[in-house]
């Protein structure tokens, strides 16, 4: 069975016929060819696939594509503005919040979701907000600094 999926993806409306059993992450990567969203585990453990659905972080690997009918989905590709990095991207870049980069798209989207909900998070709130995202490289210290830098830039 297929469903006609109508959603707003990265600010633009689109329609696609998607198989009922297709995961959002496969829809994004295989159908729309937005490969920024990563797959790092067999379901819900790592956070690499985090996207925003109506501004809230969600695992694209545990979400059926047909279940985001009519919703607003944002991926890592949506953050830059005319070739310029957004505050959270600049934070990760300048504070060295990314090393191998595999966790980064999910980490950045979780951080973006956190900052939309709480523009001025303290360190415990940042740690809680990113608890579902695993990074094998950075040790998290630089990621926390990246989020703090973005919060500061957004407030300026």
């Amino acid at each position, binding site marked *: *069975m297929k*469903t006609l999926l109508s959603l707003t993806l990265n600010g633009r409306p689109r329609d696609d016929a998607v*198989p*009922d*059993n*297709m*995961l959002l992450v*496969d829809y994004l990567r*295989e159908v729309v060819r937005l490969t920024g969203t990563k797959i790092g585990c*067999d*379901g*819900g*453990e790592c*956070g690499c696939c*985090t996207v925003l*659905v109506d501004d*809230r*972080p*969600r*695992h694209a690997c*545990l*979400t*059926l594509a*047909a*279940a985001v*009918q009519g919703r607003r989905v944002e991926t890592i590709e949506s953050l830059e503005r005319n070739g310029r990095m957004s505050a959270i991207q600049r934070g990760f870049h300048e504070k060295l919040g990314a090393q191998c980069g595999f966790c980064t798209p999910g980490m950045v989207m*979780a951080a973006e*979701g*956190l900052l939309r909900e709480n523009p001025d998070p303290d360190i415990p709130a940042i*740690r*809680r*907000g*990113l*608890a*579902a*995202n695993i990074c094998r490289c950075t040790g998290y210290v630089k990621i926390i600094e990246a989020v703090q830098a973005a919060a500061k830039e957004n407030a300026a």
Partner: protein
Amino acid sequence: MEYMPDFTLHRPKDVAEAVRLRAEEGALFVAGGTDMIVNVRRGIERPTSLVDLSAIEGLDRIERDADGLHIGAGVTLDRLATDGTIRRDFAAVAQGAAAVAGATHQRYGTLGGNLCLDTRCLFYNQSEWWRKSNDYCLKERGSVCHVAPGGKRCFAAFSGDVAPTLLVHGAEIDVVGPDGARRMKLADLYRNDGMDHLTLAPGEMIVTIHLPASEGGAPSAYEKSRIRGAIDFPLAGAAVWLRQDGGRLAALRIATTGVHTHPVLIEGLEKFAGSALDDAALDGIGETVRSQSRPMRTTTVKPWYRRRVVGALARRLTARLAGL
């Protein structure tokens, strides 16, 4: 996409339609999907259709009246964790919701899904090839329980964090099924069978969870022990609710998770009423909890440790809530 079996997805708009669709052969409910989709991907669940509850009108509402709170089964865990009334009057519930998985899971995982969470075991929550190379197990496709090979029972542990916090507040649930609606105590949702731990009849769904106002406002708390602080199912978890009267214990309720096939509302705590909660009484409370816990070798952490921890958590929370 070979890892996703073929199934039809239904997105009903109301409860009656959801229940009707669930009655079809091979149909299962999915809410947030944080447990169900993992199990589908791993070949543990092989539905021919999934009935997605996320489009049902009103299932995500929290209503308040003189009787208490009436929480839709589709309410997400982050809302339970941040709701002002819940944090103030039913603190353990907010703490339980905040202890589930990580922030992202809490943003779309639901209360209904948390209460109906499948039981968990080291030999079960694994990939298809892992389970296959172990000849599966009694709970799914196999013929032997690797935890207790002599027996014919499954000891997989119920590992939801919110159920014990609702149990200590005397929560009730509304269930709707093919034969109509009924209201029951949350405690009656569960039974002692790791293979089939819910008493729901085929096709029944939870619609509303009631928290009685009469049980609100008393001190309550939840704490769990886990391997990683960030994301992890409970090795053992305890919720405590109490009332005091002039420095003495008037009433005490404790419920546990992670140490049995179902969440357990601890029995025999009445004998501590009137106690001044000295060390001997607190030890007795911890021991009562410990003796009603039956963790088995379903996690990498040894059962004796989980039993010891669940008693210690209950003792510590009781002392803290009593202001000791």
